[in-house]
Protein backbone atom coordinates (compact mmCIF):
# COMPACT_ATOMS: atom_id res chain seq x y z
CA UNK A 1 0.00 0.00 0.00
CA UNK A 2 2.72 2.43 1.02
CA UNK A 3 4.73 1.34 -1.99
CA UNK A 4 1.82 2.16 -4.29
CA UNK A 5 1.35 5.55 -2.70
CA UNK A 6 5.04 6.20 -3.04
CA UNK A 7 4.86 5.26 -6.70
CA UNK A 8 1.98 7.67 -7.27
CA UNK A 9 3.77 10.50 -5.50
CA UNK A 10 6.98 9.97 -7.41
CA UNK A 11 5.00 9.78 -10.63
CA UNK A 12 3.34 13.09 -9.86
CA UNK A 13 6.69 14.52 -8.89
CA UNK A 14 8.25 13.34 -12.13
CA UNK A 15 5.44 14.93 -14.10
CA UNK A 16 5.83 18.24 -12.29
CA UNK A 17 9.57 18.22 -12.90
CA UNK A 18 8.92 17.41 -16.54
CA UNK A 19 6.51 20.34 -16.84
CA UNK A 20 8.95 22.73 -15.21
CA UNK A 21 11.72 21.50 -17.50
CA UNK A 22 9.46 21.98 -20.47
CA UNK A 23 8.58 25.49 -19.33
CA UNK A 24 12.26 26.35 -19.15
CA UNK A 25 12.82 24.92 -22.59
CA UNK A 26 9.87 26.89 -23.91
CA UNK A 27 11.25 30.09 -22.40
CA UNK A 28 14.64 29.57 -24.02
CA UNK A 29 12.83 28.92 -27.27
CA UNK A 30 10.95 32.19 -26.80
CA UNK A 31 14.18 34.17 -26.49
CA UNK A 32 15.70 32.36 -29.47
CA UNK A 33 12.64 33.19 -31.53
CA UNK A 34 12.74 36.85 -30.50
CA UNK A 35 16.41 36.96 -31.43
CA UNK A 36 15.67 35.56 -34.86
CA UNK A 37 12.77 37.90 -35.52
CA UNK A 38 14.90 40.18 -37.64
CA UNK A 39 14.02 38.20 -40.76
CA UNK A 40 10.32 38.25 -39.97
CA UNK A 41 10.33 42.01 -39.71
CA UNK A 42 12.77 42.76 -42.51
CA UNK A 43 11.05 40.44 -44.97
CA UNK A 44 7.61 41.63 -44.06
CA UNK A 45 5.75 39.68 -46.79
CA UNK A 46 6.46 36.54 -44.75
CA UNK A 47 4.72 38.03 -41.72
CA UNK A 48 1.95 39.48 -43.88
CA UNK A 49 1.20 35.99 -45.12
CA UNK A 50 0.89 34.78 -41.55
CA UNK A 51 -1.35 37.70 -40.59
CA UNK A 52 -3.58 36.54 -43.41
CA UNK A 53 -3.69 32.94 -42.22
CA UNK A 54 -4.05 33.75 -38.54
CA UNK A 55 -6.07 36.96 -38.65
CA UNK A 56 -8.07 37.25 -41.83
CA UNK A 57 -9.17 33.62 -41.82
CA UNK A 58 -10.33 33.97 -38.21
CA UNK A 59 -12.49 36.97 -39.07
CA UNK A 60 -15.68 35.03 -39.73
CA UNK A 61 -15.68 33.17 -36.45
CA UNK A 62 -14.70 36.27 -34.48
CA UNK A 63 -17.33 38.52 -36.03
CA UNK A 64 -20.14 36.00 -35.76
CA UNK A 65 -19.25 35.04 -32.21
CA UNK A 66 -18.93 38.68 -31.24
CA UNK A 67 -22.35 39.42 -32.63
CA UNK A 68 -23.96 36.53 -30.76
CA UNK A 69 -22.19 37.29 -27.49
CA UNK A 70 -23.31 40.90 -27.72
CA UNK A 71 -26.86 39.91 -28.44
CA UNK A 72 -26.95 37.52 -25.50
CA UNK A 73 -25.49 40.22 -23.27
CA UNK A 74 -28.22 42.52 -24.45
CA UNK A 75 -30.96 40.02 -23.67
CA UNK A 76 -29.65 38.87 -20.31
CA UNK A 77 -28.58 42.34 -19.31
CA UNK A 78 -31.95 43.85 -20.07
CA UNK A 79 -33.70 41.12 -18.12
CA UNK A 80 -31.66 41.85 -15.00
CA UNK A 81 -31.47 45.64 -15.29
CA UNK A 82 -35.16 46.08 -15.97
CA UNK A 83 -35.83 44.52 -12.58
CA UNK A 84 -34.10 47.48 -10.93
CA UNK A 85 -35.53 50.02 -13.30
CA UNK A 86 -32.13 50.72 -14.83
CA UNK A 87 -32.77 49.49 -18.35
CA UNK A 88 -31.02 52.55 -19.81
CA UNK A 89 -27.78 51.29 -18.32
CA UNK A 90 -27.84 48.42 -20.83
CA UNK A 91 -25.30 50.18 -23.03
CA UNK A 92 -22.95 50.54 -20.11
CA UNK A 93 -23.31 46.88 -19.19
CA UNK A 94 -22.72 45.60 -22.69
CA UNK A 95 -19.84 47.94 -23.46
CA UNK A 96 -17.93 47.48 -20.23
CA UNK A 97 -18.31 43.70 -20.20
CA UNK A 98 -17.07 43.44 -23.75
CA UNK A 99 -14.29 45.99 -23.79
CA UNK A 100 -12.78 45.00 -20.47
CA UNK A 101 -13.24 41.24 -20.39
CA UNK A 102 -15.22 39.37 -23.00
CA UNK A 103 -13.62 40.97 -26.04
CA UNK A 104 -10.01 40.13 -25.27
CA UNK A 105 -10.71 36.82 -23.49
CA UNK A 106 -13.25 35.20 -25.80
CA UNK A 107 -11.44 36.42 -28.90
CA UNK A 108 -8.22 34.91 -27.51
CA UNK A 109 -9.95 31.58 -26.76
CA UNK A 110 -11.41 31.45 -30.27
CA UNK A 111 -8.07 32.43 -31.74
CA UNK A 112 -6.35 29.67 -29.78
CA UNK A 113 -8.73 27.03 -31.08
CA UNK A 114 -8.75 28.19 -34.68
CA UNK A 115 -5.44 29.82 -35.50
CA UNK A 116 -3.39 28.36 -32.65
CA UNK A 117 -4.20 24.76 -33.51
CA UNK A 118 -3.61 25.46 -37.21
CA UNK A 119 -0.17 26.92 -36.49
CA UNK A 120 0.78 23.98 -34.28
CA UNK A 121 -0.39 21.44 -36.85
CA UNK A 122 1.41 23.21 -39.66
CA UNK A 123 4.75 23.47 -37.89
CA UNK A 124 4.40 19.96 -36.47
CA UNK A 125 3.74 18.49 -39.89
CA UNK A 126 6.66 20.39 -41.39
CA UNK A 127 8.82 18.84 -38.69
CA UNK A 128 7.39 15.37 -39.29
CA UNK A 129 7.98 15.52 -43.05
CA UNK A 130 11.54 16.74 -42.52
CA UNK A 131 10.85 20.10 -44.17
CA UNK A 132 12.44 21.93 -41.22
CA UNK A 133 15.51 19.68 -41.47
CA UNK A 134 15.69 20.31 -45.20
CA UNK A 135 15.63 24.05 -44.52
CA UNK A 136 18.45 23.66 -42.00
CA UNK A 137 20.53 21.73 -44.51
CA UNK A 138 19.93 24.51 -47.04
CA UNK A 139 21.47 26.95 -44.56
CA UNK A 140 18.14 28.69 -43.84
CA UNK A 141 17.28 28.96 -40.16
CA UNK A 142 13.82 27.42 -39.73
CA UNK A 143 13.16 29.42 -36.57
CA UNK A 144 13.68 32.67 -38.45
CA UNK A 145 11.89 31.61 -41.63
CA UNK A 146 8.98 29.53 -40.33
CA UNK A 147 8.47 30.15 -36.62
CA UNK A 148 9.09 33.87 -36.09
CA UNK A 149 6.77 35.13 -38.88
CA UNK A 150 3.96 32.99 -37.47
CA UNK A 151 4.58 34.37 -34.00
CA UNK A 152 4.49 38.00 -35.10
CA UNK A 153 1.52 37.33 -37.36
CA UNK A 154 -0.43 36.06 -34.37
CA UNK A 155 0.67 38.85 -32.04
CA UNK A 156 -0.26 41.53 -34.57
CA UNK A 157 -3.63 39.96 -35.39
CA UNK A 158 -4.82 39.42 -31.83
CA UNK A 159 -5.55 43.03 -30.75
CA UNK A 160 -7.34 43.72 -34.01
CA UNK A 161 -9.50 40.62 -33.59
CA UNK A 162 -10.32 41.52 -29.99
CA UNK A 163 -11.33 45.05 -31.00
CA UNK A 164 -13.50 43.66 -33.79
CA UNK A 165 -15.11 41.23 -31.37
CA UNK A 166 -15.94 44.02 -28.92
CA UNK A 167 -17.26 46.30 -31.67
CA UNK A 168 -19.48 43.57 -33.10
CA UNK A 169 -20.64 42.70 -29.60
CA UNK A 170 -21.68 46.27 -28.86
CA UNK A 171 -23.48 46.35 -32.17
CA UNK A 172 -25.21 43.10 -31.21
CA UNK A 173 -26.22 44.55 -27.86
CA UNK A 174 -27.55 47.62 -29.68
CA UNK A 175 -29.54 45.41 -32.07
CA UNK A 176 -31.19 43.49 -29.28
CA UNK A 177 -31.54 46.31 -26.76
CA UNK A 178 -32.57 49.24 -28.90
CA UNK A 179 -33.94 47.79 -32.11
CA UNK A 180 -35.58 44.66 -30.73
CA UNK A 181 -36.59 45.47 -27.17
CA UNK A 182 -36.91 49.22 -27.42
CA UNK A 183 -34.45 50.69 -24.93
CA UNK A 184 -33.92 54.36 -25.65
CA UNK A 185 -31.13 54.72 -28.22
CA UNK A 186 -30.00 58.07 -26.90
CA UNK A 187 -29.46 56.93 -23.34
CA UNK A 188 -27.95 53.65 -24.59
CA UNK A 189 -25.07 55.49 -26.25
CA UNK A 190 -24.75 58.48 -23.95
CA UNK A 191 -24.58 56.45 -20.74
CA UNK A 192 -22.11 54.16 -22.44
CA UNK A 193 -19.93 57.06 -23.47
CA UNK A 194 -19.82 58.54 -20.01
CA UNK A 195 -19.12 55.22 -18.32
CA UNK A 196 -16.48 53.76 -20.60
CA UNK A 197 -13.15 55.50 -20.12
CA UNK A 198 -10.59 55.39 -22.89
CA UNK A 199 -7.51 54.87 -20.78
CA UNK A 200 -9.05 52.70 -18.11
CA UNK A 201 -11.12 50.43 -20.25
CA UNK A 202 -10.27 50.51 -23.95
CA UNK A 203 -6.49 50.74 -23.53
CA UNK A 204 -6.48 48.09 -20.83
CA UNK A 205 -8.53 45.84 -23.06
CA UNK A 206 -6.00 46.33 -25.87
CA UNK A 207 -3.11 45.60 -23.51
CA UNK A 208 -4.87 42.41 -22.44
CA UNK A 209 -5.37 41.29 -26.02
CA UNK A 210 -1.69 41.90 -26.84
CA UNK A 211 -0.62 39.85 -23.81
CA UNK A 212 -3.03 37.08 -24.78
CA UNK A 213 -1.76 37.19 -28.35
CA UNK A 214 1.81 36.70 -27.20
CA UNK A 215 0.85 33.86 -24.87
CA UNK A 216 -1.37 31.96 -27.31
CA UNK A 217 0.94 32.28 -30.30
CA UNK A 218 4.02 31.41 -28.27
CA UNK A 219 2.36 28.22 -26.99
CA UNK A 220 1.11 27.33 -30.48
CA UNK A 221 4.50 27.84 -32.10
CA UNK A 222 6.41 26.02 -29.37
CA UNK A 223 4.13 22.98 -29.31
CA UNK A 224 4.42 22.68 -33.07
CA UNK A 225 8.19 22.99 -33.07
CA UNK A 226 8.54 20.53 -30.22
CA UNK A 227 6.03 17.96 -31.47
CA UNK A 228 7.21 14.38 -31.93
CA UNK A 229 7.46 13.83 -35.70
CA UNK A 230 4.62 11.30 -35.90
CA UNK A 231 0.90 11.47 -36.54
CA UNK A 232 0.07 10.93 -32.87
CA UNK A 233 2.71 13.42 -31.89
CA UNK A 234 1.27 16.20 -34.02
CA UNK A 235 -2.30 15.48 -32.95
CA UNK A 236 -1.28 15.47 -29.29
CA UNK A 237 0.58 18.74 -29.76
CA UNK A 238 -2.45 20.37 -31.38
CA UNK A 239 -4.70 19.34 -28.49
CA UNK A 240 -2.11 20.54 -25.98
CA UNK A 241 -1.95 23.91 -27.71
CA UNK A 242 -5.67 24.53 -27.41
CA UNK A 243 -5.87 23.36 -23.80
CA UNK A 244 -2.72 25.08 -22.54
CA UNK A 245 -3.41 28.30 -24.43
CA UNK A 246 -6.98 28.50 -23.14
CA UNK A 247 -5.87 27.94 -19.55
CA UNK A 248 -3.09 30.47 -19.94
CA UNK A 249 -5.50 33.08 -21.29
CA UNK A 250 -7.88 32.64 -18.37
CA UNK A 251 -5.10 32.69 -15.79
CA UNK A 252 -3.46 35.76 -17.33
CA UNK A 253 -6.86 37.43 -17.48
CA UNK A 254 -7.19 37.09 -13.74
CA UNK A 255 -3.71 38.49 -13.13
CA UNK A 256 -4.19 41.40 -15.51
CA UNK A 257 -7.65 42.25 -14.21
CA UNK A 258 -6.36 42.25 -10.66
CA UNK A 259 -3.55 44.60 -11.70
CA UNK A 260 -5.62 46.92 -13.84
CA UNK A 261 -9.01 47.16 -12.25
CA UNK A 262 -7.97 47.17 -8.64
CA UNK A 263 -10.63 48.96 -6.70
CA UNK A 264 -11.96 51.08 -9.55
Amino acid at each position, binding site marked *: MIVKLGAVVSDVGARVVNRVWRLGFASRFFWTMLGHSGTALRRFPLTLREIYFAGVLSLIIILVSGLFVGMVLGLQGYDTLARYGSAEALGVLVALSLVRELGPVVAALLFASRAGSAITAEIGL*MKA*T*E*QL*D*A*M*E*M*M*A*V*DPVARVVAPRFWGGVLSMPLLAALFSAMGIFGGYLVGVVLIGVDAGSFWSQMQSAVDFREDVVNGVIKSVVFGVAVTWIAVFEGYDAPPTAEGVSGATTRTVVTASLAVLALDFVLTALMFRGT
Partner: protein
Amino acid sequence: MSSTIRGFASFARPRVPSENVVEVDNVSFAYDARPVLSGISLVIPRARVIAIMGGSGCGKTTLLRLIGGALRPTSGEVRVFGEAVSDMSQDELYVLRRRMGMLFQFGALFTDMSTFDNVAFQMREHTTLPEPLIRDLVMMKLHAVGLRGAAHLMPSELSGGMARRVALARAIALDPSLMMYDEPFAGLDPISLSVIGQLIRRLNDALGATSIVVTHDVMESLKIVDYIYFISDGRIIARGTPDEIRASSMPFVHQFVHGEMDGPVAFHYPARDYRDDLLAGAVQ
Protein backbone atom coordinates in the same frame (compact mmCIF):
# COMPACT_ATOMS: atom_id res chain seq x y z
CA MET B 1 42.96 15.83 -33.74
CA SER B 2 42.03 19.45 -33.90
CA SER B 3 42.72 21.46 -30.80
CA THR B 4 41.00 24.69 -31.77
CA ILE B 5 38.84 26.54 -29.30
CA ARG B 6 35.26 26.62 -30.45
CA GLY B 7 34.21 29.98 -31.84
CA PHE B 8 37.49 31.02 -33.41
CA ALA B 9 37.32 32.31 -36.97
CA SER B 10 37.69 29.59 -39.53
CA PHE B 11 41.10 30.76 -40.69
CA ALA B 12 42.47 29.92 -37.25
CA ARG B 13 41.32 26.33 -37.62
CA PRO B 14 44.03 24.10 -39.08
CA ARG B 15 43.13 23.02 -42.58
CA VAL B 16 44.03 19.42 -43.26
CA PRO B 17 44.78 19.38 -46.97
CA SER B 18 43.62 16.18 -48.61
CA GLU B 19 42.00 14.66 -51.61
CA ASN B 20 39.12 13.59 -49.42
CA VAL B 21 36.02 15.71 -49.28
CA VAL B 22 34.82 14.06 -46.08
CA GLU B 23 36.89 12.37 -43.39
CA VAL B 24 35.20 10.61 -40.51
CA ASP B 25 37.85 10.05 -37.86
CA ASN B 26 37.05 7.48 -35.15
CA VAL B 27 33.61 8.93 -34.54
CA SER B 28 31.26 7.60 -31.90
CA PHE B 29 27.73 8.82 -31.27
CA ALA B 30 25.05 7.91 -28.76
CA TYR B 31 21.45 9.10 -28.35
CA ASP B 32 21.38 9.69 -24.55
CA ALA B 33 22.43 6.25 -23.30
CA ARG B 34 21.91 4.27 -26.47
CA PRO B 35 25.09 3.98 -28.55
CA VAL B 36 24.48 4.25 -32.29
CA LEU B 37 27.94 4.51 -33.81
CA SER B 38 31.19 3.25 -32.29
CA GLY B 39 34.56 4.15 -33.70
CA ILE B 40 33.58 4.79 -37.31
CA SER B 41 36.42 5.82 -39.61
CA LEU B 42 35.92 6.34 -43.31
CA VAL B 43 36.85 8.72 -46.10
CA ILE B 44 34.90 10.04 -49.04
CA PRO B 45 37.31 10.87 -51.86
CA ARG B 46 36.65 13.64 -54.34
CA ALA B 47 34.44 13.10 -57.42
CA ARG B 48 33.27 9.67 -56.33
CA VAL B 49 29.87 8.21 -55.58
CA ILE B 50 30.11 6.34 -52.27
CA ALA B 51 27.36 4.14 -50.83
CA ILE B 52 26.84 3.54 -47.12
CA MET B 53 24.77 0.45 -46.60
CA GLY B 54 23.36 -1.48 -43.72
CA GLY B 55 20.16 -2.73 -42.15
CA SER B 56 17.47 -0.41 -40.76
CA GLY B 57 18.47 1.49 -37.65
CA CYS B 58 22.18 0.78 -38.02
CA GLY B 59 23.12 4.45 -37.91
CA LYS B 60 23.40 5.37 -41.59
CA THR B 61 21.16 8.42 -41.36
CA THR B 62 22.88 9.47 -38.13
CA LEU B 63 26.17 9.41 -40.01
CA LEU B 64 24.74 11.72 -42.66
CA ARG B 65 23.57 14.12 -39.99
CA LEU B 66 27.00 14.10 -38.39
CA ILE B 67 28.57 14.99 -41.72
CA GLY B 68 26.03 17.75 -42.27
CA GLY B 69 26.67 19.18 -38.83
CA ALA B 70 23.12 18.65 -37.57
CA LEU B 71 24.52 16.40 -34.82
CA ARG B 72 27.77 16.56 -32.85
CA PRO B 73 29.72 13.35 -32.28
CA THR B 74 30.26 12.21 -28.71
CA SER B 75 33.88 11.50 -29.61
CA GLY B 76 36.01 11.70 -32.70
CA GLU B 77 36.00 14.27 -35.46
CA VAL B 78 34.23 14.81 -38.75
CA ARG B 79 36.10 16.88 -41.33
CA VAL B 80 34.35 18.27 -44.40
CA PHE B 81 36.41 20.12 -47.03
CA GLY B 82 39.28 19.86 -44.57
CA GLU B 83 37.55 21.62 -41.67
CA ALA B 84 36.26 20.07 -38.47
CA VAL B 85 32.48 20.29 -38.53
CA SER B 86 31.93 19.79 -34.79
CA ASP B 87 33.88 22.94 -33.90
CA MET B 88 31.91 25.22 -36.14
CA SER B 89 29.60 27.98 -34.99
CA GLN B 90 26.10 28.20 -36.43
CA ASP B 91 27.13 30.85 -38.95
CA GLU B 92 30.11 28.82 -40.13
CA LEU B 93 27.89 25.76 -40.46
CA TYR B 94 25.54 27.70 -42.68
CA VAL B 95 28.44 28.79 -44.89
CA LEU B 96 29.54 25.16 -45.15
CA ARG B 97 26.06 23.94 -45.96
CA ARG B 98 25.83 26.16 -48.99
CA ARG B 99 28.40 23.89 -50.58
CA MET B 100 26.37 20.83 -49.70
CA GLY B 101 23.11 19.53 -51.03
CA MET B 102 20.92 16.93 -49.35
CA LEU B 103 18.12 14.82 -50.73
CA PHE B 104 15.86 13.71 -47.91
CA GLN B 105 13.91 10.49 -47.77
CA PHE B 106 10.57 11.10 -49.54
CA GLY B 107 11.79 14.48 -50.73
CA ALA B 108 10.76 16.87 -47.93
CA LEU B 109 9.47 19.42 -50.42
CA PHE B 110 7.92 22.55 -48.96
CA THR B 111 4.24 21.81 -49.33
CA ASP B 112 3.06 25.40 -49.20
CA MET B 113 4.88 26.46 -52.38
CA SER B 114 4.94 25.26 -55.98
CA THR B 115 7.60 23.09 -57.58
CA PHE B 116 9.15 26.16 -59.16
CA ASP B 117 9.31 28.00 -55.82
CA ASN B 118 10.80 24.94 -54.14
CA VAL B 119 13.70 24.78 -56.60
CA ALA B 120 14.11 28.57 -56.53
CA PHE B 121 14.15 28.59 -52.71
CA GLN B 122 17.90 28.51 -52.17
CA MET B 123 18.55 30.96 -54.98
CA ARG B 124 16.14 33.46 -53.50
CA GLU B 125 17.43 33.01 -49.94
CA HIS B 126 21.16 33.04 -50.55
CA THR B 127 21.68 35.09 -53.71
CA THR B 128 20.52 38.42 -55.03
CA LEU B 129 19.99 37.14 -58.55
CA PRO B 130 17.22 38.90 -60.48
CA GLU B 131 14.01 36.97 -61.02
CA PRO B 132 14.43 36.39 -64.79
CA LEU B 133 17.82 34.79 -64.15
CA ILE B 134 16.41 32.68 -61.33
CA ARG B 135 13.66 31.54 -63.66
CA ASP B 136 16.18 30.38 -66.24
CA LEU B 137 18.27 28.56 -63.64
CA VAL B 138 15.21 26.82 -62.18
CA MET B 139 14.14 25.70 -65.63
CA MET B 140 17.64 24.34 -66.27
CA LYS B 141 17.65 22.36 -63.03
CA LEU B 142 14.18 21.00 -63.67
CA HIS B 143 15.18 20.09 -67.21
CA ALA B 144 18.14 18.13 -65.86
CA VAL B 145 15.74 15.92 -63.90
CA GLY B 146 13.17 15.87 -66.70
CA LEU B 147 10.42 17.83 -64.93
CA ARG B 148 10.56 21.23 -66.61
CA GLY B 149 6.88 20.89 -67.60
CA ALA B 150 5.80 20.33 -63.99
CA ALA B 151 7.15 23.62 -62.69
CA HIS B 152 3.71 25.01 -61.90
CA LEU B 153 2.46 21.96 -59.96
CA MET B 154 2.15 21.85 -56.18
CA PRO B 155 4.00 19.07 -54.30
CA SER B 156 0.71 17.41 -53.40
CA GLU B 157 0.01 16.96 -57.12
CA LEU B 158 3.25 15.10 -57.78
CA SER B 159 3.75 11.35 -57.69
CA GLY B 160 6.38 9.88 -55.36
CA GLY B 161 8.99 9.54 -58.05
CA MET B 162 8.34 13.02 -59.41
CA ALA B 163 8.53 14.57 -55.95
CA ARG B 164 11.86 12.84 -55.37
CA ARG B 165 13.20 14.25 -58.64
CA VAL B 166 12.01 17.77 -57.81
CA ALA B 167 13.73 17.47 -54.42
CA LEU B 168 16.87 16.46 -56.29
CA ALA B 169 16.59 19.51 -58.54
CA ARG B 170 16.16 21.64 -55.41
CA ALA B 171 19.22 20.08 -53.76
CA ILE B 172 21.48 20.86 -56.73
CA ALA B 173 20.11 24.40 -57.16
CA LEU B 174 23.36 26.07 -56.08
CA ASP B 175 25.66 23.49 -57.71
CA PRO B 176 26.97 21.96 -54.48
CA SER B 177 30.32 20.19 -54.26
CA LEU B 178 29.00 17.51 -51.91
CA MET B 179 25.69 15.75 -52.40
CA MET B 180 24.12 13.53 -49.76
CA TYR B 181 21.25 11.17 -50.45
CA ASP B 182 19.18 9.71 -47.61
CA GLU B 183 17.46 6.54 -48.88
CA PRO B 184 16.83 7.93 -52.37
CA PHE B 185 15.37 4.63 -53.60
CA ALA B 186 12.85 4.09 -50.82
CA GLY B 187 9.34 3.30 -52.04
CA LEU B 188 9.83 3.87 -55.77
CA ASP B 189 8.59 1.92 -58.76
CA PRO B 190 11.21 0.16 -60.96
CA ILE B 191 11.29 2.91 -63.59
CA SER B 192 11.72 5.68 -61.04
CA LEU B 193 14.35 3.60 -59.26
CA SER B 194 16.42 3.44 -62.39
CA VAL B 195 15.83 7.11 -63.18
CA ILE B 196 16.97 8.28 -59.77
CA GLY B 197 19.99 6.01 -59.86
CA GLN B 198 21.05 7.27 -63.28
CA LEU B 199 20.45 10.88 -62.25
CA ILE B 200 22.62 10.49 -59.16
CA ARG B 201 25.49 9.21 -61.28
CA ARG B 202 25.06 11.65 -64.12
CA LEU B 203 24.67 14.73 -61.95
CA ASN B 204 27.66 13.78 -59.88
CA ASP B 205 29.84 13.53 -62.96
CA ALA B 206 28.35 16.63 -64.61
CA LEU B 207 28.78 18.82 -61.51
CA GLY B 208 32.20 17.40 -60.67
CA ALA B 209 30.78 16.79 -57.24
CA THR B 210 31.12 14.07 -54.63
CA SER B 211 28.10 12.02 -53.58
CA ILE B 212 27.26 9.96 -50.53
CA VAL B 213 24.31 7.60 -50.94
CA VAL B 214 22.83 6.08 -47.80
CA THR B 215 20.63 3.19 -48.80
CA HIS B 216 19.73 -0.42 -48.33
CA ASP B 217 18.75 -0.97 -51.95
CA VAL B 218 21.53 -3.24 -53.11
CA MET B 219 20.59 -3.73 -56.76
CA GLU B 220 20.39 -0.07 -57.74
CA SER B 221 23.36 1.15 -55.76
CA LEU B 222 25.73 -1.58 -56.96
CA LYS B 223 25.00 -0.33 -60.48
CA ILE B 224 26.05 3.27 -59.93
CA VAL B 225 28.50 3.64 -57.03
CA ASP B 226 32.32 3.52 -56.95
CA TYR B 227 32.83 2.26 -53.39
CA ILE B 228 30.71 0.85 -50.59
CA TYR B 229 30.91 0.92 -46.79
CA PHE B 230 28.90 -1.61 -44.83
CA ILE B 231 27.73 -0.66 -41.34
CA SER B 232 26.31 -3.08 -38.79
CA ASP B 233 25.84 -2.54 -35.04
CA GLY B 234 27.45 0.90 -35.31
CA ARG B 235 30.69 -0.39 -36.84
CA ILE B 236 32.06 -0.66 -40.37
CA ILE B 237 32.24 -4.36 -41.06
CA ALA B 238 33.02 -4.37 -44.76
CA ARG B 239 34.21 -2.04 -47.50
CA GLY B 240 35.06 -2.38 -51.15
CA THR B 241 34.16 -1.79 -54.76
CA PRO B 242 30.86 -3.21 -56.07
CA ASP B 243 32.64 -6.22 -57.55
CA GLU B 244 34.45 -6.94 -54.28
CA ILE B 245 31.21 -6.70 -52.34
CA ARG B 246 29.36 -8.94 -54.74
CA ALA B 247 32.07 -11.55 -54.40
CA SER B 248 32.44 -11.13 -50.64
CA SER B 249 32.17 -14.23 -48.52
CA MET B 250 31.62 -12.36 -45.25
CA PRO B 251 28.41 -13.81 -43.77
CA PHE B 252 26.64 -10.49 -43.18
CA VAL B 253 27.58 -9.02 -46.56
CA HIS B 254 26.61 -12.22 -48.30
CA GLN B 255 23.23 -12.34 -46.56
CA PHE B 256 22.62 -8.65 -47.32
CA VAL B 257 23.62 -8.68 -50.96
CA HIS B 258 21.79 -11.90 -51.79
CA GLY B 259 18.80 -11.21 -49.60
CA GLU B 260 19.00 -14.41 -47.61
CA MET B 261 16.32 -14.96 -45.02
CA ASP B 262 18.57 -16.24 -42.27
CA GLY B 263 22.19 -15.57 -41.42
CA PRO B 264 24.00 -13.13 -39.11
CA VAL B 265 20.76 -11.15 -39.04
CA ALA B 266 18.56 -13.83 -37.53
CA PHE B 267 15.10 -14.54 -38.88
CA HIS B 268 13.66 -15.27 -35.44
CA TYR B 269 13.40 -12.49 -32.87
CA PRO B 270 14.96 -13.79 -29.60
CA ALA B 271 12.35 -15.88 -27.78
CA ARG B 272 11.93 -18.93 -25.53
CA ASP B 273 12.25 -22.44 -26.80
CA TYR B 274 9.39 -23.12 -29.24
CA ARG B 275 8.24 -26.29 -27.48
CA ASP B 276 8.15 -24.56 -24.09
CA ASP B 277 6.16 -21.61 -25.47
CA LEU B 278 3.52 -23.88 -27.04
CA LEU B 279 3.20 -26.01 -23.95
CA ALA B 280 2.90 -22.98 -21.66
CA GLY B 281 -0.77 -22.56 -22.49
CA ALA B 282 -1.58 -26.27 -22.28
CA VAL B 283 -4.57 -27.43 -20.25
CA GLN B 284 -3.31 -28.88 -16.95
